[in-house]
């Protein structure tokens, strides 16, 4: 293990330990011994698939957050002392999730400012899962493209394209299958444009990506005024129905979050598994990684570098397009600019997850939860302005790509054009 990576692990450890201390003191001891926080676990809607009923859990805020903070600090100390080789990301994810839980407990304490004095953990997780799902689609698209050596910064554009076409097709056919197919097709088409310009004509991949996003945001806004406004029947915005899995939905908390979701969520899980397995366990994955790390060497052993890159960028585009449809299916009718940079956050999740599907999933969960909380913390009347809260996810992303991960190593040939000669 290199010194850089040891230092990075230690850095994460120190950060976690400090965050734990701040939590234990600021959210724990400072909230006073009288404060109580309540957690509820029952989903908002009580349909037939509702999970088993769980009572309200009331905790003394100070004690609970002290424990949470010390747990975070313990994980951080363990990282600094032992410097483990595996599972660093998972540990960081755990620290971040504990922090968010402590923040919630602090926000809803009984003597606090909020009229709501409980937090519905299930509702929070279900709400965050929609954003997480979209982020995972996006970062998975990035994994597919960048492992083959092409930077796909156009994820945001593919989200916009997928959401737009998905909303139109879903409104016309009332069938999310066709919406998903159309979204994947549009995303794949955008991937093809990116691949065509950057592989055949060796254009700058980042520039092409950024310009594609600008073009898609302009085009979607144009089409919204020119087509969707005069014909509102093309943008009715139906939400994809939930498909509860029998019995499993009865599990409290986990049931509604994992087993009572729309089809896109299950599709996402299948895709993550498939990409993870394919990339690291199959011949195809070995070839893709070879192309992304050392295309010349890959070419010498007979791998068609350009072909692999085309396939992966188109596939990646299709996955991001699906992400756009999934976003639309969970947020409602298309509006210009409503993905608000989610594609770029997915890109950050990909980098934070060190170009691995599993890492990207952990990063997406952390980002998704903090995004959701920053959108919704004002319901708990946290004494901070909405706008400042709205900055938090972006600031976290900046902190993550700079301080925490530092110089992580992308695939060696990522973004470097390949010339056949």
């Amino acid at each position, binding site marked *: 293990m290199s010194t850089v990576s040891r230092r990075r692990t230690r850095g994460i450890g120190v950060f976690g330990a400090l965050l734990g201390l701040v939590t234990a003191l600021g959210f724990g001891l400072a909230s006073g011994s009288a404060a109580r926080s309540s957690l509820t676990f029952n989903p908002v809607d009580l349909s037939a698939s509702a999970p088993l009923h769980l009572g309200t859990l009331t905790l003394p805020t100070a004690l609970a957050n002290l424990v949470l903070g010390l747990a975070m600090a313990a994980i951080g100390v363990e990282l600094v002392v032992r410097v483990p080789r595996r599972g660093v990301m998972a540990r960081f994810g755990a620290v971040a999730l504990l922090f968010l839980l402590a923040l919630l407990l602090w926000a809803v304490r009984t003597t606090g400012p909020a009229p709501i004095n409980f937090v519905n953990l299930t509702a929070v997780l279900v709400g965050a899962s929609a954003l997480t799902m979209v982020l995972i689609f996006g970062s998975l698209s990035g994994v597919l493209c960048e492992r083959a050596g092409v*930077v796909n*910064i156009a994820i945001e554009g593919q989200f916009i394209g997928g959401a737009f076409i998905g909303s139109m097709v879903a409104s016309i056919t009332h069938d999310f299958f066709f919406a998903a197919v159309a979204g994947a097709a549009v995303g794949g088409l955008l991937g093809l444009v990116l691949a065509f*310009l950057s592989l055949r*004509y*060796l*254009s*700058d*991949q*980042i*520039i*092409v990506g*950024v*310009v*594609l996003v*600008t*073009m898609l*945001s*302009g*085009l979607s*806004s*144009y*089409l919204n*005024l*020119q*087509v969707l406004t*005069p014909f509102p029947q093309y943008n009715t915005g139906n939400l994809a129905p939930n498909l509860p899995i029998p019995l499993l939905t009865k599990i409290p908390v986990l049931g509604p979050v994992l087993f009572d979701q729309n089809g896109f969520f299950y599709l996402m899980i299948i895709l993550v598994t498939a990409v993870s397995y394919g990339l690291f366990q199959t011949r195809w994955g070995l070839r893709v990684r070879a192309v992304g790390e050392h295309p010349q060497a890959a070419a010498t052993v007979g791998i068609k570098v350009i072909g692999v890159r085309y396939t992966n960028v188109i596939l990646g585009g299709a996955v991001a397009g699906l992400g756009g449809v999934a976003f639309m299916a969970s947020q409602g009718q298309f509006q210009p600019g409503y993905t*608000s*940079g989610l594609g*770029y956050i997915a*890109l*950050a999740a990909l*980098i934070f997850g060190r170009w691995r599907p599993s890492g990207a999933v952990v990063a997406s969960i952390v980002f998704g939860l903090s995004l959701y909380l920053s959108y919704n913390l004002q319901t708990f009347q946290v004494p901070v*302005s909405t*706008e*400042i809260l*709205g*900055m938090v996810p*972006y*600031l976290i*992303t*900046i902190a993550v*790509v*700079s*301080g925490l991960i*530092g*110089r*992580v190593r*992308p695939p060696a*040939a*990522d*973004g*470097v*054009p390949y010339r056949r000669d």
Partner: protein
Amino acid sequence: MSESRRRWWHRLTTRSPLLVTLDALILGFVVGALVIITTTASVLDAWRAMFSSWAAFGHACKLTADVVGAAYRAMFTGAVVDPRIFWHALTTGHGWTLALTPLSETLTYAAPLIIASIGVGIAFQTGIFNIGANGQAILGGVAGAYMGSLVHLPTVVHLPLTLAAGIVGGVVVGLVPGLLKAYTGAHEVIVTLMLNYVVAALLIFTLLSTVLQQPGQQNDISRTLTPSAQLAPLFGAASGLRVNWGLAVAALVVIFAWWFLERSSLGFDFRVTGANPQAARASGINARAVIVLVFVISGGLAGLAGIVQLAGTTHYLDGGFLIGNAGIGFTAITVSLLGRNRPVGIVWSSLLFAGLGVGGRAMQVATGIPLDLATVIQSAVVLFVATPVLVQEIFRLRHAAAGEVRLATSGWGS
């Protein structure tokens, strides 16, 4: 005679940067026309009747040409000059304000765009991708608004101080990605993108929750700049034309940028770093200092663009400051690429894109085709400019003797 004609033809069919740019423009407008045709209901209906009769076919062709022609004509008359109004002013001597308004509007929009694009272009020449010009410009505007509306001084002092505050605001936002890239290796693309969202939220926050908010207002509107901090109209307030001294600021920036890149030693270091980072390091150029300085200059120029927009055109901030038309930052990237990152090229492409924006608005008013078409055309043009070989193949141009594809960035290289 025929020899010279042949040489002329040869030149017109051999790839050169200027020719590629012009051809890319043509292709961009073709894309725009296709977008109009495929999304306008009346045109599509006319084409649907194509198989019933020859007359319907002819009608469809004519209608298509009419719709596209009307859109582009409105764009031109709205951005440059309306020949009829101009002729009227020329013959009668009245109505000059109306005749010159389109040109004045285009120049008004071009001034901040030139400044911001030159900042982005200098970063590009150093191999750094500053996508954060939007955030830098907005904070420049915010800082300038504090100085320009809350402080009272005579113009001689106040205006330069206001402009300086704008520059400082842009530098502050620019320093974040600069320092992070230099010292932690964080990729500037992600950091600047995220900062754009942070600053957009900060703008709303300052407009709603600080002393900057217009007294007695609940909306996101700032105080108005005192007249001593405003950039006056170039031809006096009586002229009715909005074009202002911001254009002079832009001209100074162009001269500064030319001198900086072509004559100063720091500019030379920048260009060497952009052309060949290894060689730059080998020759003793301090890579970290270059990265930080690039962001100081690029961010400062973006901030200046923000304050020029505020002090020259809007005079107050609101929630939509610099957001329209995909945001000045993204337009600046496309302008800079179209102008090949050189000051003079940027002036021309800024004028063009400012004209597209202004003309797009006129087009929306006249024909109902949404203004966002301008953004589509702009990004299409830049896609083609970024891919010169594609343009060369479409127009079957001859290979140029020299001229390789040079990348501004490559990957996440840390």
